[in-house]
Protein backbone atom coordinates (compact mmCIF):
# COMPACT_ATOMS: atom_id res chain seq x y z
CA UNK A 1 0.00 0.00 0.00
CA UNK A 2 1.53 3.34 -1.07
CA UNK A 3 1.16 6.61 0.83
CA UNK A 4 -1.50 7.87 -1.59
CA UNK A 5 -3.44 4.70 -1.05
CA UNK A 6 -4.20 5.44 2.61
CA UNK A 7 -7.76 4.34 3.39
CA UNK A 8 -10.27 7.16 3.92
CA UNK A 9 -11.92 5.15 6.68
CA UNK A 10 -9.80 2.88 8.85
CA UNK A 11 -11.32 1.08 11.80
CA UNK A 12 -9.13 -1.06 14.03
CA UNK A 13 -10.26 -3.48 16.72
CA UNK A 14 -13.35 -1.40 17.54
CA UNK A 15 -15.48 -2.56 20.45
CA UNK A 16 -18.51 -0.70 21.79
CA UNK A 17 -20.45 -1.77 24.85
CA UNK A 18 -23.85 -0.49 26.04
CA UNK A 19 -24.00 -1.61 29.65
CA UNK A 20 -24.09 -5.42 29.51
CA UNK A 21 -24.52 -5.58 25.74
CA UNK A 22 -21.50 -5.81 23.48
CA UNK A 23 -22.73 -3.97 20.37
CA UNK A 24 -19.47 -4.19 18.42
CA UNK A 25 -16.71 -6.70 19.06
CA UNK A 26 -13.25 -6.11 17.59
CA UNK A 27 -14.33 -4.69 14.25
CA UNK A 28 -11.71 -3.99 11.56
CA UNK A 29 -12.75 -2.12 8.42
CA UNK A 30 -10.88 -0.26 5.67
CA UNK A 31 -12.38 1.78 2.85
CA UNK A 32 -10.12 3.54 0.35
CA UNK A 33 -11.03 6.65 -1.65
CA UNK A 34 -13.58 6.10 -4.39
CA UNK A 35 -15.08 3.02 -2.80
CA UNK A 36 -18.74 2.25 -2.37
CA UNK A 37 -19.07 -0.09 0.57
CA UNK A 38 -22.15 -1.88 1.80
CA UNK A 39 -22.54 -2.59 5.49
CA UNK A 40 -24.87 -5.56 5.69
CA UNK A 41 -26.52 -7.04 8.72
CA UNK A 42 -29.87 -7.69 10.34
CA UNK A 43 -31.49 -5.21 12.72
CA UNK A 44 -29.44 -5.03 15.90
CA UNK A 45 -26.26 -6.25 14.21
CA UNK A 46 -24.40 -3.05 15.13
CA UNK A 47 -24.63 -1.06 11.88
CA UNK A 48 -25.97 2.08 13.56
CA UNK A 49 -23.50 1.70 16.41
CA UNK A 50 -20.65 1.54 13.92
CA UNK A 51 -21.89 4.77 12.28
CA UNK A 52 -22.24 6.40 15.69
CA UNK A 53 -18.68 5.41 16.53
CA UNK A 54 -17.37 6.95 13.29
CA UNK A 55 -19.35 10.12 14.08
CA UNK A 56 -18.02 10.28 17.63
CA UNK A 57 -21.49 9.86 19.15
CA UNK A 58 -20.53 6.82 21.20
CA UNK A 59 -17.28 6.25 23.02
CA UNK A 60 -15.63 2.97 22.06
CA UNK A 61 -14.54 0.60 24.79
CA UNK A 62 -11.42 -0.08 22.77
CA UNK A 63 -10.00 0.38 19.31
CA UNK A 64 -9.88 3.43 17.10
CA UNK A 65 -11.52 5.05 14.11
CA UNK A 66 -9.37 7.09 11.73
CA UNK A 67 -10.74 9.19 8.88
CA UNK A 68 -8.52 10.74 6.19
CA UNK A 69 -5.43 9.59 8.08
CA UNK A 70 -6.32 11.45 11.28
CA UNK A 71 -8.58 11.08 14.30
CA UNK A 72 -12.22 10.88 13.19
CA UNK A 73 -13.07 13.87 15.42
CA UNK A 74 -10.78 16.12 13.41
CA UNK A 75 -12.36 15.08 10.11
CA UNK A 76 -15.84 15.53 11.55
CA UNK A 77 -15.16 19.03 12.86
CA UNK A 78 -13.82 19.94 9.41
CA UNK A 79 -17.13 18.80 7.91
CA UNK A 80 -15.55 15.92 5.99
CA UNK A 81 -18.05 13.30 7.22
CA UNK A 82 -21.66 13.47 6.04
CA UNK A 83 -24.37 11.41 7.67
CA UNK A 84 -27.71 10.57 6.11
CA UNK A 85 -30.15 9.48 8.84
CA UNK A 86 -32.81 6.81 8.63
CA UNK A 87 -36.11 8.37 7.58
CA UNK A 88 -37.69 7.05 10.78
CA UNK A 89 -35.31 9.26 12.81
CA UNK A 90 -36.57 12.50 11.24
CA UNK A 91 -39.40 14.74 12.54
CA UNK A 92 -41.34 15.17 9.29
CA UNK A 93 -43.80 17.63 10.83
CA UNK A 94 -41.00 20.11 11.57
CA UNK A 95 -41.63 23.48 9.87
CA UNK A 96 -38.70 23.40 7.45
CA UNK A 97 -38.70 23.41 3.67
CA UNK A 98 -36.71 21.06 1.46
CA UNK A 99 -34.31 23.90 0.64
CA UNK A 100 -33.80 24.70 4.34
CA UNK A 101 -32.73 21.13 5.09
CA UNK A 102 -30.31 20.98 2.17
CA UNK A 103 -28.86 24.35 3.22
CA UNK A 104 -28.08 22.82 6.64
CA UNK A 105 -25.47 20.73 4.82
CA UNK A 106 -23.50 23.98 4.38
CA UNK A 107 -23.77 25.25 7.97
CA UNK A 108 -20.35 23.94 8.97
CA UNK A 109 -18.75 26.19 6.34
CA UNK A 110 -20.75 29.29 7.17
CA UNK A 111 -19.86 32.08 9.57
CA UNK A 112 -21.18 32.94 13.03
CA UNK A 113 -24.73 33.70 11.87
CA UNK A 114 -24.88 30.84 9.27
CA UNK A 115 -25.86 33.17 6.47
CA UNK A 116 -25.65 31.49 3.08
CA UNK A 117 -23.13 32.98 0.65
CA UNK A 118 -23.58 32.88 -3.10
CA UNK A 119 -21.36 29.77 -3.19
CA UNK A 120 -23.55 28.12 -0.55
CA UNK A 121 -26.72 28.83 -2.51
CA UNK A 122 -25.12 27.52 -5.69
CA UNK A 123 -24.10 24.30 -3.93
CA UNK A 124 -27.63 23.87 -2.58
CA UNK A 125 -29.18 24.44 -6.00
CA UNK A 126 -26.79 21.96 -7.58
CA UNK A 127 -27.50 19.34 -4.93
CA UNK A 128 -31.26 19.79 -5.44
CA UNK A 129 -30.81 19.39 -9.19
CA UNK A 130 -28.76 16.24 -8.81
CA UNK A 131 -31.38 14.50 -6.67
CA UNK A 132 -34.12 15.77 -8.98
CA UNK A 133 -35.91 17.83 -6.31
CA UNK A 134 -35.42 21.36 -7.68
CA UNK A 135 -39.18 21.64 -8.37
CA UNK A 136 -40.05 20.72 -4.78
CA UNK A 137 -37.49 22.96 -3.06
CA UNK A 138 -40.18 25.11 -1.42
CA UNK A 139 -42.26 22.22 -0.07
CA UNK A 140 -42.42 21.43 3.62
CA UNK A 141 -40.52 18.15 4.09
CA UNK A 142 -43.59 16.25 5.34
CA UNK A 143 -45.35 16.84 2.00
CA UNK A 144 -43.02 14.42 0.16
CA UNK A 145 -43.17 10.76 -0.81
CA UNK A 146 -40.87 8.17 0.76
CA UNK A 147 -38.33 8.32 -2.06
CA UNK A 148 -38.35 12.10 -2.16
CA UNK A 149 -37.75 12.18 1.60
CA UNK A 150 -34.63 10.05 1.21
CA UNK A 151 -33.41 12.29 -1.59
CA UNK A 152 -33.73 15.45 0.56
CA UNK A 153 -31.18 14.07 2.99
CA UNK A 154 -28.98 12.75 0.19
CA UNK A 155 -29.00 16.30 -1.22
CA UNK A 156 -27.96 17.64 2.17
CA UNK A 157 -25.02 15.22 2.22
CA UNK A 158 -24.11 16.31 -1.34
CA UNK A 159 -24.25 19.99 -0.40
CA UNK A 160 -21.87 19.28 2.45
CA UNK A 161 -19.27 18.09 -0.10
CA UNK A 162 -17.85 15.61 2.39
CA UNK A 163 -15.16 13.01 1.69
CA UNK A 164 -16.87 10.22 3.59
CA UNK A 165 -20.62 9.64 3.37
CA UNK A 166 -22.42 7.38 5.83
CA UNK A 167 -25.91 6.45 4.63
CA UNK A 168 -28.32 4.65 6.93
CA UNK A 169 -30.89 2.58 5.01
CA UNK A 170 -31.15 4.95 2.00
CA UNK A 171 -33.40 2.54 0.11
CA UNK A 172 -35.98 2.04 2.86
CA UNK A 173 -39.50 2.88 1.67
CA UNK A 174 -38.55 4.20 -1.78
CA UNK A 175 -40.22 3.59 -5.12
CA UNK A 176 -38.40 2.21 -8.18
CA UNK A 177 -37.72 5.64 -9.64
CA UNK A 178 -36.16 7.03 -6.48
CA UNK A 179 -34.17 3.83 -6.04
CA UNK A 180 -32.71 4.30 -9.53
CA UNK A 181 -31.95 7.99 -8.89
CA UNK A 182 -30.26 7.26 -5.58
CA UNK A 183 -28.27 4.29 -6.94
CA UNK A 184 -26.91 6.18 -9.92
CA UNK A 185 -26.03 9.16 -7.72
CA UNK A 186 -24.09 6.95 -5.32
CA UNK A 187 -22.14 5.52 -8.29
CA UNK A 188 -21.44 9.04 -9.59
CA UNK A 189 -20.17 10.16 -6.19
CA UNK A 190 -17.84 7.17 -6.06
CA UNK A 191 -16.51 8.03 -9.52
CA UNK A 192 -15.88 11.58 -8.31
CA UNK A 193 -13.67 10.16 -5.55
CA UNK A 194 -15.99 10.14 -2.54
CA UNK A 195 -16.01 7.20 -0.14
CA UNK A 196 -19.41 5.83 0.75
CA UNK A 197 -20.63 3.36 3.32
CA UNK A 198 -24.26 2.26 2.95
CA UNK A 199 -25.88 0.45 5.86
CA UNK A 200 -28.74 -1.81 4.87
CA UNK A 201 -30.43 -5.05 5.83
CA UNK A 202 -31.72 -5.42 2.30
CA UNK A 203 -29.39 -7.68 0.34
CA UNK A 204 -31.18 -7.43 -3.01
CA UNK A 205 -29.57 -5.01 -5.43
CA UNK A 206 -26.67 -4.15 -3.14
CA UNK A 207 -24.39 -6.68 -4.85
CA UNK A 208 -24.68 -4.86 -8.16
CA UNK A 209 -24.19 -1.46 -6.55
CA UNK A 210 -21.18 -1.80 -4.26
CA UNK A 211 -17.46 -2.60 -4.65
CA UNK A 212 -17.07 -3.96 -1.17
CA UNK A 213 -19.48 -5.75 1.10
CA UNK A 214 -19.06 -6.11 4.85
CA UNK A 215 -21.26 -8.56 6.73
CA UNK A 216 -21.70 -7.45 10.31
CA UNK A 217 -23.07 -9.34 13.29
CA UNK A 218 -21.36 -7.54 16.19
CA UNK A 219 -18.15 -8.88 14.57
CA UNK A 220 -17.20 -8.70 10.88
CA UNK A 221 -18.32 -12.09 9.56
CA UNK A 222 -17.09 -11.53 6.03
CA UNK A 223 -15.61 -8.64 4.05
CA UNK A 224 -14.49 -8.30 0.46
CA UNK A 225 -15.80 -7.97 -3.11
CA UNK A 226 -19.56 -8.57 -3.17
CA UNK A 227 -19.28 -11.65 -5.39
CA UNK A 228 -17.12 -13.30 -2.72
CA UNK A 229 -19.12 -12.13 0.28
CA UNK A 230 -22.63 -12.54 -1.04
CA UNK A 231 -22.27 -16.22 -1.83
CA UNK A 232 -25.06 -18.65 -0.94
CA UNK A 233 -22.76 -20.39 1.57
CA UNK A 234 -21.89 -17.20 3.47
CA UNK A 235 -25.44 -15.88 3.36
CA UNK A 236 -26.97 -19.11 4.55
CA UNK A 237 -24.42 -19.22 7.35
CA UNK A 238 -25.35 -15.67 8.42
CA UNK A 239 -29.06 -15.96 7.97
CA UNK A 240 -29.18 -19.54 9.26
CA UNK A 241 -27.44 -18.29 12.36
CA UNK A 242 -29.98 -15.48 12.61
CA UNK A 243 -32.94 -17.81 12.17
CA UNK A 244 -31.69 -20.08 14.94
CA UNK A 245 -31.36 -17.03 17.17
CA UNK A 246 -34.90 -15.95 16.38
CA UNK A 247 -36.26 -19.44 17.02
CA UNK A 248 -34.64 -19.74 20.41
CA UNK A 249 -35.92 -16.27 21.41
Amino acid at each position, binding site marked *: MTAGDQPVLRIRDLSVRYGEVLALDGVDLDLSAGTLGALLGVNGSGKSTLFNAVMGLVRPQQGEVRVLDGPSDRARRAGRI*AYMPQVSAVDWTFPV*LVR*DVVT*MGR*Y*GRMGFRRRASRADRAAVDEALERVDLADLADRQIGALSGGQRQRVFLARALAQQASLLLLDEPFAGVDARSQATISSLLRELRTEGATLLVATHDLAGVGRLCDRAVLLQQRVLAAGPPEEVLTPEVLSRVFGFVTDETRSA
Partner: protein
Amino acid sequence: MSAVVDWIVAPLQFEFMVRALLAAVVAGLVGAVLSCWLTLIGWSLLGDAVSHAVLPGVVLSYIVGIPFGVGAFVFGAGAVGAIGVVRRTSRVKEDAAIGVVFTGLFALGIVLVSRTPSDTDLFHILFGNLLGVSTADLVQIGALGAVVLLVVGLKHRDLTLFAFDRVHSHAVGISPRRTEVLLLGLLALSVVTALQAVGVVLVVAMLIIPGATAYLLTDRMERMLLYASGTSVLTSVLGTYLSFHVDLATGGTIVVCQALAFVAVYLLAPRHGLLGRRLTRRRARQAA
Protein backbone atom coordinates in the same frame (compact mmCIF):
# COMPACT_ATOMS: atom_id res chain seq x y z
CA MET B 1 -66.63 53.99 16.92
CA SER B 2 -65.57 56.64 19.42
CA ALA B 3 -66.41 54.19 22.21
CA VAL B 4 -63.80 51.77 20.85
CA VAL B 5 -61.19 54.52 20.51
CA ASP B 6 -62.02 55.65 24.00
CA TRP B 7 -61.69 52.08 25.31
CA ILE B 8 -58.17 51.98 23.89
CA VAL B 9 -56.99 55.55 24.47
CA ALA B 10 -58.51 56.48 27.82
CA PRO B 11 -56.37 54.09 29.93
CA LEU B 12 -53.22 55.56 28.37
CA GLN B 13 -53.59 58.73 30.48
CA PHE B 14 -52.48 56.60 33.43
CA GLU B 15 -48.72 56.15 33.49
CA PHE B 16 -49.02 52.77 35.21
CA MET B 17 -51.11 51.52 32.26
CA VAL B 18 -48.51 52.69 29.74
CA ARG B 19 -45.80 50.88 31.69
CA ALA B 20 -48.01 47.79 31.99
CA LEU B 21 -48.69 47.71 28.25
CA LEU B 22 -45.01 48.14 27.38
CA ALA B 23 -44.05 45.33 29.77
CA ALA B 24 -46.81 43.14 28.31
CA VAL B 25 -45.53 43.71 24.77
CA VAL B 26 -41.92 42.84 25.68
CA ALA B 27 -42.92 39.78 27.73
CA GLY B 28 -45.30 38.61 25.02
CA LEU B 29 -42.68 39.01 22.30
CA VAL B 30 -39.84 37.29 24.16
CA GLY B 31 -42.03 34.43 25.35
CA ALA B 32 -43.44 33.92 21.86
CA VAL B 33 -40.05 33.73 20.16
CA LEU B 34 -38.68 31.18 22.63
CA SER B 35 -41.92 29.17 22.61
CA CYS B 36 -41.39 28.24 18.95
CA TRP B 37 -38.24 26.25 19.68
CA LEU B 38 -39.44 24.95 23.05
CA THR B 39 -42.59 23.41 21.54
CA LEU B 40 -40.72 21.98 18.55
CA ILE B 41 -38.06 20.35 20.74
CA GLY B 42 -40.58 19.20 23.34
CA TRP B 43 -39.17 21.23 26.22
CA SER B 44 -42.50 22.52 27.54
CA LEU B 45 -42.13 20.68 30.84
CA LEU B 46 -38.61 22.06 31.20
CA GLY B 47 -40.00 25.59 30.71
CA ASP B 48 -42.54 24.90 33.43
CA ALA B 49 -39.78 23.66 35.72
CA VAL B 50 -37.51 26.66 35.20
CA SER B 51 -40.35 29.12 35.79
CA HIS B 52 -41.31 27.53 39.12
CA ALA B 53 -37.72 27.06 40.24
CA VAL B 54 -36.97 30.79 40.11
CA LEU B 55 -39.28 31.52 43.08
CA PRO B 56 -36.64 31.28 45.83
CA GLY B 57 -34.35 33.46 43.69
CA VAL B 58 -37.02 36.16 43.45
CA VAL B 59 -37.74 36.07 47.18
CA LEU B 60 -34.06 36.19 48.12
CA SER B 61 -33.57 39.14 45.75
CA TYR B 62 -36.32 41.05 47.56
CA ILE B 63 -34.75 40.22 50.93
CA VAL B 64 -31.25 41.22 49.86
CA GLY B 65 -32.48 44.20 47.84
CA ILE B 66 -31.04 43.40 44.41
CA PRO B 67 -32.97 43.36 41.08
CA PHE B 68 -35.28 40.32 41.16
CA GLY B 69 -33.97 39.24 37.75
CA VAL B 70 -30.53 38.42 39.19
CA GLY B 71 -31.80 35.93 41.76
CA ALA B 72 -34.33 34.50 39.35
CA PHE B 73 -31.68 33.86 36.70
CA VAL B 74 -29.31 32.22 39.18
CA PHE B 75 -32.02 29.82 40.39
CA GLY B 76 -33.41 29.20 36.87
CA ALA B 77 -30.00 28.29 35.52
CA GLY B 78 -29.23 26.34 38.70
CA ALA B 79 -32.42 24.31 38.29
CA VAL B 80 -31.48 23.39 34.70
CA GLY B 81 -28.04 22.32 35.88
CA ALA B 82 -29.45 20.32 38.79
CA ILE B 83 -31.92 18.50 36.52
CA GLY B 84 -29.05 17.53 34.21
CA VAL B 85 -26.90 16.31 37.11
CA VAL B 86 -29.67 14.17 38.63
CA ARG B 87 -30.52 12.65 35.25
CA ARG B 88 -26.92 11.84 34.34
CA THR B 89 -25.65 10.60 37.68
CA SER B 90 -28.60 8.50 38.86
CA ARG B 91 -31.08 6.03 37.36
CA VAL B 92 -33.90 8.58 37.74
CA LYS B 93 -35.46 9.45 34.38
CA GLU B 94 -35.64 13.01 33.07
CA ASP B 95 -39.29 13.78 33.82
CA ALA B 96 -38.87 12.61 37.41
CA ALA B 97 -35.64 14.63 37.75
CA ILE B 98 -37.51 17.71 36.49
CA GLY B 99 -40.37 17.05 38.91
CA VAL B 100 -38.10 16.65 41.93
CA VAL B 101 -36.00 19.75 41.23
CA PHE B 102 -38.76 22.21 40.38
CA THR B 103 -41.20 21.27 43.12
CA GLY B 104 -38.34 21.24 45.64
CA LEU B 105 -37.18 24.72 44.67
CA PHE B 106 -40.75 26.06 44.40
CA ALA B 107 -41.47 24.77 47.92
CA LEU B 108 -38.24 26.38 49.16
CA GLY B 109 -39.51 29.66 47.71
CA ILE B 110 -42.85 29.32 49.55
CA VAL B 111 -41.03 28.60 52.81
CA LEU B 112 -38.80 31.64 52.31
CA VAL B 113 -41.82 33.86 51.61
CA SER B 114 -43.50 32.73 54.84
CA ARG B 115 -40.45 33.91 56.79
CA THR B 116 -40.24 37.27 54.97
CA PRO B 117 -41.75 40.29 56.78
CA SER B 118 -43.77 41.67 53.86
CA ASP B 119 -45.49 38.48 52.80
CA THR B 120 -48.21 40.41 50.93
CA ASP B 121 -45.91 40.20 47.90
CA LEU B 122 -46.45 36.45 47.51
CA PHE B 123 -49.60 36.93 45.46
CA HIS B 124 -47.78 39.32 43.12
CA ILE B 125 -44.81 37.01 42.72
CA LEU B 126 -47.00 33.98 41.99
CA PHE B 127 -49.55 35.65 39.73
CA GLY B 128 -47.80 38.75 38.45
CA ASN B 129 -48.32 42.43 39.06
CA LEU B 130 -48.36 44.01 35.65
CA LEU B 131 -50.30 47.11 36.72
CA GLY B 132 -47.70 47.69 39.43
CA VAL B 133 -44.62 47.61 37.16
CA SER B 134 -42.23 50.41 38.18
CA THR B 135 -39.99 52.31 35.78
CA ALA B 136 -36.98 50.42 37.17
CA ASP B 137 -38.79 47.10 36.51
CA LEU B 138 -39.60 48.22 32.99
CA VAL B 139 -35.97 49.11 32.29
CA GLN B 140 -34.91 45.68 33.54
CA ILE B 141 -37.56 43.89 31.44
CA GLY B 142 -36.61 45.92 28.39
CA ALA B 143 -32.88 45.22 28.76
CA LEU B 144 -33.37 41.48 29.29
CA GLY B 145 -35.83 41.29 26.40
CA ALA B 146 -33.38 43.11 24.13
CA VAL B 147 -30.60 40.67 25.02
CA VAL B 148 -32.80 37.65 24.27
CA LEU B 149 -34.02 39.05 20.96
CA LEU B 150 -30.49 40.06 19.90
CA VAL B 151 -29.03 36.61 20.62
CA VAL B 152 -31.97 34.93 18.87
CA GLY B 153 -31.51 37.24 15.88
CA LEU B 154 -27.88 36.20 15.59
CA LYS B 155 -28.18 32.48 16.34
CA HIS B 156 -31.69 31.44 15.27
CA ARG B 157 -30.37 29.12 12.56
CA ASP B 158 -28.29 27.20 15.10
CA LEU B 159 -31.34 26.91 17.37
CA THR B 160 -33.46 25.54 14.54
CA LEU B 161 -30.71 23.11 13.50
CA PHE B 162 -30.48 21.91 17.10
CA ALA B 163 -34.25 21.46 17.33
CA PHE B 164 -34.44 19.64 14.00
CA ASP B 165 -31.36 17.42 13.83
CA ARG B 166 -28.78 17.27 16.60
CA VAL B 167 -26.82 14.50 14.91
CA HIS B 168 -26.31 16.57 11.78
CA SER B 169 -25.32 19.57 13.92
CA HIS B 170 -22.67 17.34 15.51
CA ALA B 171 -21.65 16.04 12.07
CA VAL B 172 -20.91 19.50 10.66
CA GLY B 173 -18.96 20.52 13.75
CA ILE B 174 -21.57 22.77 15.42
CA SER B 175 -21.61 21.46 19.00
CA PRO B 176 -25.22 20.59 19.93
CA ARG B 177 -24.17 20.73 23.59
CA ARG B 178 -23.17 24.38 23.19
CA THR B 179 -26.43 25.27 21.42
CA GLU B 180 -28.36 23.50 24.17
CA VAL B 181 -26.64 25.58 26.85
CA LEU B 182 -27.35 28.75 24.84
CA LEU B 183 -31.03 27.86 24.53
CA LEU B 184 -31.32 27.03 28.23
CA GLY B 185 -29.74 30.39 29.06
CA LEU B 186 -32.26 32.13 26.80
CA LEU B 187 -35.04 30.16 28.49
CA ALA B 188 -33.96 31.36 31.94
CA LEU B 189 -33.73 34.98 30.69
CA SER B 190 -37.20 34.78 29.08
CA VAL B 191 -38.73 33.41 32.27
CA VAL B 192 -37.28 36.37 34.17
CA THR B 193 -38.57 38.79 31.52
CA ALA B 194 -42.13 37.44 31.56
CA LEU B 195 -42.23 36.92 35.34
CA GLN B 196 -43.37 40.47 36.13
CA ALA B 197 -46.24 40.22 33.66
CA VAL B 198 -47.96 36.99 34.62
CA GLY B 199 -46.11 35.65 37.66
CA VAL B 200 -44.23 32.45 38.45
CA VAL B 201 -47.20 30.11 38.03
CA LEU B 202 -48.35 31.35 34.63
CA VAL B 203 -45.01 32.24 32.99
CA VAL B 204 -44.91 28.85 31.34
CA ALA B 205 -48.09 29.71 29.42
CA MET B 206 -46.27 32.56 27.66
CA LEU B 207 -43.50 30.08 26.78
CA ILE B 208 -45.74 27.39 25.28
CA ILE B 209 -49.10 28.67 24.02
CA PRO B 210 -47.88 31.11 21.31
CA GLY B 211 -45.58 28.49 19.77
CA ALA B 212 -48.24 25.78 19.91
CA THR B 213 -50.74 28.18 18.30
CA ALA B 214 -48.39 29.22 15.50
CA TYR B 215 -47.38 25.60 14.82
CA LEU B 216 -50.97 24.90 13.76
CA LEU B 217 -50.92 27.83 11.33
CA THR B 218 -47.84 27.29 9.18
CA ASP B 219 -45.17 24.92 7.87
CA ARG B 220 -42.43 27.56 7.80
CA MET B 221 -40.17 28.50 10.69
CA GLU B 222 -40.00 32.24 9.90
CA ARG B 223 -43.79 32.48 9.70
CA MET B 224 -44.15 30.43 12.86
CA LEU B 225 -41.99 33.01 14.70
CA LEU B 226 -44.04 35.81 13.17
CA TYR B 227 -47.46 34.32 13.99
CA ALA B 228 -46.39 33.37 17.52
CA SER B 229 -45.14 36.91 18.16
CA GLY B 230 -48.27 38.44 16.62
CA THR B 231 -50.80 36.41 18.61
CA SER B 232 -48.77 36.69 21.80
CA VAL B 233 -48.35 40.48 21.68
CA LEU B 234 -52.00 41.01 20.67
CA THR B 235 -53.39 38.78 23.42
CA SER B 236 -51.03 40.30 26.02
CA VAL B 237 -52.20 43.82 25.15
CA LEU B 238 -55.84 42.75 24.95
CA GLY B 239 -55.58 40.96 28.31
CA THR B 240 -54.06 44.03 29.94
CA TYR B 241 -56.87 46.28 28.63
CA LEU B 242 -59.55 43.80 29.67
CA SER B 243 -58.15 43.51 33.17
CA PHE B 244 -58.13 47.32 33.45
CA HIS B 245 -61.68 47.85 32.20
CA VAL B 246 -63.38 44.86 33.80
CA ASP B 247 -61.14 44.73 36.89
CA LEU B 248 -59.74 41.22 36.41
CA ALA B 249 -56.43 39.66 37.49
CA THR B 250 -54.06 40.86 34.74
CA GLY B 251 -51.79 37.81 34.39
CA GLY B 252 -54.72 35.43 34.41
CA THR B 253 -56.61 37.48 31.82
CA ILE B 254 -53.61 37.53 29.47
CA VAL B 255 -53.18 33.77 29.66
CA VAL B 256 -56.91 33.15 29.19
CA CYS B 257 -56.77 35.33 26.04
CA GLN B 258 -53.80 33.31 24.76
CA ALA B 259 -55.59 30.05 25.49
CA LEU B 260 -58.73 31.27 23.68
CA ALA B 261 -56.60 32.24 20.67
CA PHE B 262 -55.16 28.72 20.70
CA VAL B 263 -58.62 27.15 20.84
CA ALA B 264 -59.80 29.28 17.91
CA VAL B 265 -56.77 28.29 15.84
CA TYR B 266 -57.03 24.65 16.92
CA LEU B 267 -60.60 24.59 15.59
CA LEU B 268 -60.35 26.85 12.56
CA ALA B 269 -56.75 26.74 11.22
CA PRO B 270 -56.94 26.18 7.44
CA ARG B 271 -54.75 23.07 7.19
CA HIS B 272 -53.81 21.79 10.64
CA GLY B 273 -56.99 22.77 12.48
CA LEU B 274 -59.82 20.38 13.30
CA LEU B 275 -62.21 21.91 10.76
CA GLY B 276 -59.52 22.28 8.09
CA ARG B 277 -58.53 18.62 8.37
CA ARG B 278 -62.18 17.53 8.10
CA LEU B 279 -62.67 19.62 4.96
CA THR B 280 -59.48 18.31 3.37
CA ARG B 281 -60.55 14.73 4.06
CA ARG B 282 -64.05 15.32 2.69
CA ARG B 283 -62.65 16.92 -0.45
CA ALA B 284 -60.26 13.99 -0.89
CA ARG B 285 -63.17 11.56 -0.54
CA GLN B 286 -65.29 13.48 -3.07
CA ALA B 287 -62.41 13.58 -5.51
CA ALA B 288 -61.89 9.82 -5.17
